[in-house]
């Protein structure tokens, strides 16, 4: 073996070792700081992990863009949301007075809240954009209470890491990390554009997550579960979206 070839081999070997060690260290750091998304395995795992980690480093405390009231879309688009079941229609016929939001999991005082009870929490509003993964969008005023207040009321335990939320529609469920769950614009939403939240837009109750795409803002929510491990839910990928082939983190 010539001297040059040996030197090249040694350099390549050292570079590869340093690269592998660097990657391993990066992976350990990412895991420690919770920068690996629940769907971070598989062939698209590296891209998802890079996106989620990069955004969480840049935007942990950032605010979704808010617009002046004049920017509210005259023609918001409700999108379609599967057929509503018998249970929904029964509650709708009763004026939603029996609608409950059940909160359980890693909380000191599990409980359930009616719409009237939720409306006694501090009321807030925001004019933000709903952006669909398909490419369309609209701006609306959303009225509700920050999710953080609800989590406070049930005494969320300090080791909690994610909030799982479910729709009354079967198999529709999502989850967010604490950076989004405690973000002040993440609302348990019951009003839109100065009125009650219309059924087409998720009424009577929708979780708005304005720093992520529309599919994370689940309509008709009936339950929240606070957890430190998403593996126990569904197929363990974090939410229904990755089970259907879509990314769990939708801040893009």
């Amino acid at each position, binding site marked *: 073996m010539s001297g040059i070839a040996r030197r090249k081999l040694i350099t390549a070997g050292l570079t590869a070792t340093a690269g592998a060690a660097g990657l391993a260290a990066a992976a350990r750091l990412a895991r420690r700081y919770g920068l690996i998304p629940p769907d971070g395995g598989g062939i698209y795992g590296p*891209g998802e992990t890079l996106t989620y980690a990069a955004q969480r480093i840049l*935007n942990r405390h*950032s605010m*979704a863009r808010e617009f002046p009231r004049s920017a509210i*879309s005259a023609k918001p688009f409700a999108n379609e949301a599967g057929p509503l079941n018998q249970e929904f229609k029964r509650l709708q016929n009763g004026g939603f007075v029996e609608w409950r939001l059940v909160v359980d999991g890693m909380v000191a005082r599990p409980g359930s809240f009616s719409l009237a009870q939720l409306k006694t929490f501090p009321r807030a509003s925001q004019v933000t954009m709903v952006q669909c993964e398909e490419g369309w*969008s609209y701006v609306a005023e959303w009225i509700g209470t920050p999710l953080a207040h609800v989590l406070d009321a049930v005494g969320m335990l300090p080791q909690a890491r994610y909030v799982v939320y479910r729709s009354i529609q079967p198999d529709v469920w999502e989850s967010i990390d604490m950076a989004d769950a405690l973000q002040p614009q993440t609302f348990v939403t019951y009003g839109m554009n100065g009125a009650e939240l219309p059924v087409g837009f998720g009424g009577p109750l929708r979780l708005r997550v304005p720093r992520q795409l529309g599919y994370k803002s689940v309509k008709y929510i009936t339950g929240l579960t606070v957890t430190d491990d998403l593996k126990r839910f569904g197929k363990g990928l974090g939410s229904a979206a990755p089970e259907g082939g*879509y990314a769990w983190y939708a801040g893009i």
Partner: protein
Amino acid sequence: MLCFLALLVTGIEILISHPRLYWGETGNVLTAPILSFPIPSSRDTVPSGYGYVLPDQNGWSRYLHFQTAWALIIIGMVYAMYLFGAGHLRKSLLPARADLSWRALLSVAANHLRLERPSAAEASSYNVLQRLTYLIVISILFPLIVWTGLAMAPGFVSAFPWAVGWLGGQQSARTIHFFITVSLVLFLLVHVAMICLAGFRTRMRAMITGRIDRSMEES
């Protein structure tokens, strides 16, 4: 090349789920588009005029689009380091001042249009038109396509709202992203056509090994 094709195909798949472009902040099927493609859509909420809906390919398309974008950004950073580090920028890409007169530009353009074979001196280097085109691609189109892509991400613009504000809104960013893609596709088509005209085998060999085989060039 592989990255570009992956991004192009997945980008088209994503566009098919809403084949309408808007200007400003917002746009949806209830508002007027500035451009509507006469193609069927993969969503039944889009009034495409066709009686059928294409299968939804957005899940894997989005995963692959963003993963490839990361790969391209990493490759782009390595390329940028090489450009500046090895003096490649000055040597091969920045046009010489003398070449920038209209006369010189026109003469090179005329040679191109007459499909003349490059002279021996030209064959081993880039001429002024090539240099200008490559410079526009790497210093304007490439950064712009990354920027407009990021400007569509709600999580990204929450940290950097100016990234979308300067473009005139989120739907404007989407529309610009589309038209830069069109320019890049045009660049690629012309680029590949030129390679074919100049002799596909010798050019590919030259690109990969960095050497030009004179005897091959002549034959």
